């Protein structure tokens, strides 16, 4: 490839495989595509700000044939053009906007701008600077005819030429370390503008130079697999706006066509190249960002109408031809944007895909009055459903610079309604092959069948699929599906002896069916791209009685029963241990009284025994000691009561320790005193 020579810049190479949406059938920009592009442009238009974006938007709409004034208006453009502080780039895009909007400005307002531009031309060195200035002047010439006179067009020509290289590429700036074809496109456009401004300055030598540059430029074309050609972007382009191969190819086409429109036929490019470039733009599609859409549309606009060579595209509509609607195939010869071009079209041959012999050949198509739309009608009588490759021969009738692919081939799918009369359903004996049960399932009644089979039997399904011309048709999708709860098994209906059939030997399938006995539903799906009536039928059910699985195999249905992990779970509340059974108060209260009876009896007994306190010490220390002793005992007993009422064990034990210690001293004293006082009596007794 050509750009390998600039090895160092490979880093920034971005020409890759393009998304090609409709490579098989190139066609002129269709209505749907234009609508899609319009919608996308309107969407993109919401956020444009700079004049360059606005121009891209306006130009894109212009190519699509829509007048769009939302982006900017002549007033705004006029303000920029008359302002002395506007930069060249803004002036350039403002003037282009003005051109696209078909504004008209009063001559005096623009005089200052023109003279400013003219005077500063000498100082411009970079290609883009010159391009903007010359471009603006070329547009302004429409409004201020006499004012735009270049002082020294030859010098400008030499300046541009100086940036060019031998091989036809260009530098943007003398200091650039690389050249590009896109820059050459800019240079050619600038030279075309220069030609427009000062055509007299260009002598034959200069025109020949331009011819040479143009022909060299088209040696840079790179190719895609589908035959479309384009110009790749170079590293140096990245620094000057980039835009990828779309922008580069678009710029070159713009430059070359502009140049061709200002020369009288000297500039020539081979038809094959123009056609493959126009295919490149048509297949690239108009569905990207604003700048990409602009580059495609701008190029298509340039290709649609120019003095170089207008590519003529053969479009087939519809590409899917329905036999049931009796539609005719419309073949149109148009420019890329859809303007009709007179031509006569012959069908050289029509071949069914995967077949050798053409089923139609050499047939001149009927043309409309404008000779741009041609009808292929006879297809209906002979053709069967399927895919066909149609090869045409195009002979252009219109005068002028037009070019068309001589033998374009287009692929057409013919669709129709197939007929399936019935489905044969049967249960056969494995060994003998004799039918134990057969039924002809009728699609029109949809009456379901209920089969029963064991693993020693076979299931048989067979059906005829006939195309509209009553030929056996083999659809791409011919499935039989057995469904058992969560398990699904798919089988292919194979064609044999003009029938689609399937014999299921259940013995061999036991393992595949996971030994799952039970009811399976039977579904048949027949579909094909050429079928207008794809079907999915529920034939009914079959109850299979399969043997038990050998030891150790796990039934998968049990595994499949995993509960969903999503969603709330049922609430759980704890059930507390029930309280112990207790005696009712009516029982416990009498027992309470009953339990006090012994105490009462004890007290009554003491009374009856006439107990007295005569032995209580009557004086002094023993009395105090006895009092403390009994008070101590009472307080320990009271502590027990408190233990019941509120204290815990530790509090009680602590208190008990204190009380018991305190009790020991008076206790010992009292008891020994009592012992002392009574012992003499014992002795005396």
């Amino acid at each position, binding site marked *: 490839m050509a750009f390998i020579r600039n090895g160092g810049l490979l880093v920034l190479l971005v020409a*890759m*495989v*393009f*998304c090609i*949406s*409709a490579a098989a059938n190139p066609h002129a920009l269709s209505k*749907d595509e234009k609508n*899609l592009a319009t919608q*996308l442009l309107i969407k993109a238009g919401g956020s444009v700000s700079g004049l360059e974006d606005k121009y891209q938007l306006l130009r894109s709409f212009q190519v699509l044939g829509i007048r769009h004034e939302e982006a900017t208006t002549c007033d705004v453009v006029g303000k920029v053009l008359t302002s002395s502080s506007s930069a060249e780039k803004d002036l350039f895009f403002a003037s282009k906007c003005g051109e696209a909007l078909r504004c008209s400005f009063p001559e005096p307002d623009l005089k200052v701008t023109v003279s400013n531009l003219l005077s500063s031309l000498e100082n411009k060195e970079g290609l883009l600077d010159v391009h903007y200035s010359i471009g603006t002047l070329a547009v302004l010439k429409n409004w201020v005819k006499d004012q735009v006179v270049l002082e020294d067009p030859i010098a400008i020509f030499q300046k541009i030429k100086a940036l060019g290289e031998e091989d036809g590429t260009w530098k943007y700036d003398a200091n650039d370390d690389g050249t590009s074809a896109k820059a050459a496109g800019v240079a050619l456009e600038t030279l075309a503008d220069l030609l427009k401004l000062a055509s007299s300055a260009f002598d034959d030598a200069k025109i020949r130079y331009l011819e040479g540059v143009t022909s060299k430029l088209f040696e840079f074309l790179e190719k895609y697999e589908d035959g479309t050609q384009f110009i790749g972007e170079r590293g140096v382009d990245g620094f000057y706006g980039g835009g*990828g191969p779309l922008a580069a190819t678009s710029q070159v086409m713009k430059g070359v066509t502009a140049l061709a429109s200002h020369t009288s036929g000297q500039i020539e490019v081979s038809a094959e190249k123009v056609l493959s470039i126009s295919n490149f733009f048509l297949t690239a*599609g108009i*569905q*990207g*960002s604003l700048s*990409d859409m602009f580059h495609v549309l701008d190029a298509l606009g340039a290709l649609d109408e120019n003095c170089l060579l207008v590519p003529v595209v053969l479009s087939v509509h519809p590409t*899917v031809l329905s036999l049931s609607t009796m539609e005719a195939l419309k073949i149109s010869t148009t420019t890329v944007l859809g303007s009709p071009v007179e031509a006569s079209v012959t069908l050289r041959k029509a071949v069914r895909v995967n077949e050798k012999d053409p089923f139609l050949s050499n047939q001149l198509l009927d043309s409309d009055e404008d000779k741009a739309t041609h009808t292929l009608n006879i297809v209906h009588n002979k053709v069967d459903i399927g895919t066909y490759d149609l090869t045409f021969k195009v002979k252009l009738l219109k005068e002028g610079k037009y070019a068309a692919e001589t033998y374009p081939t287009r692929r057409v799918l013919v669709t129709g309604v197939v007929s399936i009369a019935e489905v044969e359903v049967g249960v056969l004996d494995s060994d003998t092959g004799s039918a134990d049960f057969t039924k002809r399932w009728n699609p029109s009644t949809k009456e379901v069948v209920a089969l029963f089979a064991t693993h020693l039997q076979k299931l048989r399904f067979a059906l005829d699929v006939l195309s509209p011309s009553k030929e056996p048709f083999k659809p*791409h*999708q011919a499935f039989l*599906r057995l469904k058992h709860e969560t398990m699904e098994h798919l*089988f*292919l209906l194979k064609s044999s002896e003009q029938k689609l059939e399937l014999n299921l030997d259940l013995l061999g399938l036991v393992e595949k069916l996971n030994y799952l006995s039970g009811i399976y539903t039977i*579904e048949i*799906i027949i*579909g*094909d*791209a050429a*079928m207008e009536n*794809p079907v*999915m039928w529920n034939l009914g059910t079959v109850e299979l009685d399969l043997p038990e699985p050998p030891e150790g195999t796990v039934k998968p249905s049990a595994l*499949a029963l995993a509960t969903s992990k*999503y969603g*709330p*779970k049922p*609430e*759980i509340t*704890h059930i*507390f241990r029930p309280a112990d059974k*207790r005696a009712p*108060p009516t*029982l*416990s209260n009498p*027992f309470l009284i009953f*339990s*006090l009876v*012994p105490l009462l009896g*004890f007290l009554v007994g*003491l009374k009856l025994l006439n*107990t*007295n306190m*005569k*032995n209580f010490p009557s004086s002094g220390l023993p009395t105090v000691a*006895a009092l403390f002793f*009994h008070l101590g*005992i*009472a307080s320990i*007993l009271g502590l027990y*009561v408190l233990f019941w009422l509120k204290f*815990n*064990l530790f509090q009680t034990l602590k208190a008990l320790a204190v009380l018991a210690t305190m009790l020991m001293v008076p206790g010992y004293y*009292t008891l020994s005193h009592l012992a002392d006082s009574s012992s003499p009596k014992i002795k005396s007794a």
Partner: protein
Amino acid sequence: MTAPFSLCLSPDRSLHPRLLVLVDDVAVKSSHSLFFNSLADRGYKLDFKLASDPSLALKSYGEYLFDGLILFAPSTEQFGGSVDAAGILEFVDSGRDLILAADSEMSDTMRIIGSECGADFDEDFNAVVIDHLNFAISEDSNEHSLIAADSFVKSNAILGEKDIEAPVLFEGIAHSVAPANDLVIKVLSASSSAYSANPDVSLGDPPALSGSKISLVSVVQARNNARILISGSLSLFSNKFFMSPVTKFGSSKSYDSSGNQQFAEEISKWIFHERGHLKAVHVGHHKAGELQEPQMYRITDHLEYSLEIYEWTGKDWQPYVADDVQVQFYMMSPYILKTLEHNGQGLYHTSFQVPDVYGVFQFKLEYNRLGYTSLSLSKQIPVRPFRHDEYERFIRAAYPYYSSCFSMMFGFFIFGVVFLYHK
């Protein structure tokens, strides 16, 4: 164990997440510009690179340079720079998000990434999804491989509140997800008549993938909250499909534009955590009537449990409101499972009585909802039995016992006095 629920996404999560978009063709940037613009409009910083760019890097000095990765480079066999399939999986393992779009020219590398994420693409390199009953009528495609898909997952978290009415256009390859893998969710499934095969070759064997087993678009929510989108179609995100009108075969209804734009935008919101990302904070519990969190509960205590749940919206944390948040009081098995009440401001609470079983319990909150990050919180708390003095003291039925005790004590006291001083 406390699960890493919310720490990976701090409240000051970047409001302008950086996304790396890897393409195998610069034209993708332009032909899918509507999708990229919608991301840029939502505050994402997109960095476009060719997948073969030699300066490609996900990391710099151990730090990831991006918060998410969009792989719109199905045909890339080998990445440029320091990126490889393992590096991308590591990127996901670090909790970052990935969008992977395939098409019929999918490379092995991409298949490996897909299968590591739980989506197994059809092994037949020429197979595409075909559906003769549910295709979109179109001029460009006559192989019935332009599918008008409309069986979406039922989850507002993933696909937004608003139903997607128009079918989604899909043109690409099929993948399947293992039913046992509950991290992968089929977002867009094929209909039961779909199959995956090469349209140009007649079938010799039943197709490996067919019917509703085929997933067209799946998402993965990893345990570390990384989210992955796997689409079998790159053009699903394209401007062309966004704007295309759709008429489904056999249906009289036609839509002015497909559901692709809504679908792609809504699902990208989910993937980049603008929806369905929850965090739980201020998880606490205390005894009824107290405020302090105790070290331990006693059986039959009444306690209150509360937490706050917030959802990330892409800008800030908003209260999450749901009626199905449940907490378990758990020891080997749940003893109590209760749905939390909420105040509509993200505060969830409930109260219950501790069961009369002692041991080491957990407050366990397992929140798994389709499309939401799973919350998995657990907090250990021991439960002790009654202390000796915490049992009931004044039992009516036991009064005869008490009275006999006290009467004996009283009798002992009187007997002592009488025994010592009677004469």
